[in-house]
């Protein structure tokens, strides 16, 4: 403008006495900051977030946190019950577990486990144990927790049918089960944004075709199609390829697949198209590309993140269910679903209920993810 004069009218906000400077923080806060402030107030979501972070942290360093390898077994300790970790010995802090003893029922010859209070197995942090190679890079035998003497029985959550440590196997499983969620959601997100964006922005027959396709996919019953696809996967495929196949199947078909994402994205584009600020940007002369990525996508990115967080637990559950039925991952891959296969026999659960612990692991992380996602969703719109 040519003139630099200020319009001096009394009482314009130039000298607004109702705005103390202490609130400046709030006024220049970006959407992410506002979201974080709001999220922080949501106690349950914060707790959920911390649990989720812990899970992923442990999963990343599974070799270190697991007391033993998933394949390590001691054949005399089959279906051994969980040991209780004792913290104090003779009045001072010195954690240990008691050893196992057993007796046979004279009539049925059934083996009954006992706690042998005579045998004390000292437990330590940062102990040497089984040797492992992490991500093919670091070779070490350092474990976060374990028996101080290698080879001693240490079953915090009991052992399975081969005498393997369930606790260690749950930790190893989390790596597979948690990443199936992430990778699966990443695939469905990419597909969903692409298809939903096309559908919402181009409209017309493109929208029509995509919407009918989504309806078609959504009306296929999940389980039978998974069964069929699982049957097609050759038995001799390497574990890694089966893993990717499983995530792909989950990402393309199912309740939390790309169809769900595509619908979220499409509806966002449709409602944003009506917003005055998008019209204003168009009248500013923005190109379609800029309109989408500068003005529209940032407005619903936080919603997408919330949807993603809420889709991950669905994926985890689906993987668990699939593997449980023997359709997804198979041994020797360890995942929570694979582990739960052992608990298919009701008789075994009656005698060895600790076989259900992988289910508890699933339960906790799914709950935590849901709380976390809810919190993000509530915080995603800091302007309402």
């Amino acid at each position, binding site marked *: *403008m040519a*003139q*630099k004069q*200020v*319009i001096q*009218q009394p009482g*314009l*906000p*130039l000298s607004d006495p109702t705005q103390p400077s202490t609130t400046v923080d*709030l*006024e*220049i*806060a*970006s*959407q992410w900051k*506002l979201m974080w402030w709001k999220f922080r107030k949501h106690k349950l979501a914060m707790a959920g977030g911390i649990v989720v972070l812990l899970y992923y942290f442990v999963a990343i360093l599974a070799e270190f946190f697991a007391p033993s390898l998933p394949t390590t077994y001691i054949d005399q300790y089959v279906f051994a019950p969980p040991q209780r970790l004792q913290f104090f010995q003779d009045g001072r802090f010195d954690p240990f577990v008691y050893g196992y003893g057993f007796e046979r029922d004279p009539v049925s010859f059934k083996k009954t486990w006992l706690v042998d209070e005579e045998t004390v197995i000292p437990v330590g942090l940062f102990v040497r144990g089984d040797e492992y190679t992490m991500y093919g890079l670091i070779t070490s035998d350092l474990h976060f927790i374990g028996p101080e003497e290698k080879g001693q029985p240490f079953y915090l959550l009991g052992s399975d049918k081969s005498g393997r440590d369930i606790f260690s196997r749950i930790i190893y499983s989390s790596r597979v089960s948690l990443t199936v969620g992430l990778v699966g959601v990443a695939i469905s997100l990419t597909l969903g944004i692409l298809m939903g964006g096309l559908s919402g922005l181009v409209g*017309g027959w493109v929208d*029509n075709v995509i919407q009918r396709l989504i309806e078609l996919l959504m009306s296929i019953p999940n389980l039978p199609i998974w069964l069929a696809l699982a049957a097609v996967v050759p038995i001799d495929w390497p574990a890694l390829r089966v893993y990717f196949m499983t995530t792909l199947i989950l990402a393309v078909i199912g309740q939390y697949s790309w169809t769900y994402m595509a619908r979220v994205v499409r509806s966002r584009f449709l409602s944003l198209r009506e*917003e*005055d*600020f998008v*019209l*204003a*940007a*168009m*009248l*500013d*002369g*923005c*190109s379609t590309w*800029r309109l989408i990525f500068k*003005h529209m996508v*940032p*407005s619903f990115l936080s919603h997408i993140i919330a949807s993603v967080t809420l889709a991950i637990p669905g994926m985890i559950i689906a993987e668990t269910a699939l593997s449980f039925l023997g359709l997804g991952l198979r041994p020797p891959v360890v995942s929570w679903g694979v582990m739960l296969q052992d608990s298919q026999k009701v008789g075994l659960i009656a005698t060895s209920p600790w076989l259900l612990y992988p289910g508890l692991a699933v339960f906790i992380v799914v709950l935590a993810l849901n709380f976390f996602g809810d919190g993000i969703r509530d915080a995603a719109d*800091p*302007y309402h």
Partner: protein
Amino acid sequence: MADQTPNTEPVDAAEENILLDVKNLKMFFPITEGIFSQVKGYVRAVDDVSFFIRRGETLGLVGESGCGKTTVGRCIARAYEPTGGQVLFHDNGRSVDLAQMDRKALGPYRKDIRVIFQDPYSSLNPRMTVFEIVSEVLKVNKLIPESEFEQRVAEIIQLVGLRPEYIRRYPHAFSGGERQRIVIARALVTEPRLVIADEAVSALDVSVRAQILNLMEDLRQRFDLTYLFISHDLSVIRHICDRVVVMYVGQVIEVAGVNDLFTTPQHPYTEALMSAVPILNPRQRHLQKRIRLEGEVADPSNPPSGCYFHPRCRFAEAKCAVEKPPLRKLANQDRYVACHFAEELDLQGAVMT
């Protein structure tokens, strides 16, 4: 369907001071049905509208909801692609038809015609700072070097009465009135020739409305702006406009200077509008002789025959149901009306308070 004779040319050929000349503008929206979106008919939102805006004047565009006034504004700003007609923009000796231009050719004219929106909450992107919002048009059109953005934005923000320090803030830090100042800053940052204000003060509090109206008038004088002021609020129209276009069901029914329109309306619908203006003095309540319009506003997808207003008009005669009255210039006056009997009727103006 009504007869299709186009309205007569309302522009005085001798008139030279015209900035924008809208001729026979049409905007039809298709009504679709079924999975495969077959077109079942059209909503004739703007149906053969002609008027012009003189340089430096404030032209009011008034009518009730659904009359097409917002659509007219958006066609001129080219948010929509008009179905037909011309929008002639005269500037610097050139004349161009904006109505039929493609998006690329429109580029240079985006900075000349700017829009102020109604809702100061939905018209500012909550994810962008004031600086980003106001400088967007400078950036995408490369109007000035990027190094000068900050100074320009700070200047314009100051001109609309906000502190220049505020440009790093997000819209959520501002009240409705302050947001509307930002919207005005965004419109004026390109030094436009024409500003389309679409219900610019309707969403604001009473005490803030006066501030924004004064600001707009002040800026108009300062920058020699021309306003197309779209509103349903007759007292605001009365306050800020020089001339007024009255619309009913997608058509212009009267164009007149603001004083003439309010004191001696020539169209029965205008008279009904004037009689509905609230009287601001309780002592003058008895002066009001309110004209009760019978029935409902016509459906723009299925308008009545002849004059669209005839089913509700208290003066309607047989001719009105058959023949559509053209918008015609009244002899020796700078006003236009679309009524067969404009000269014969003696209509009441608004009660002056």
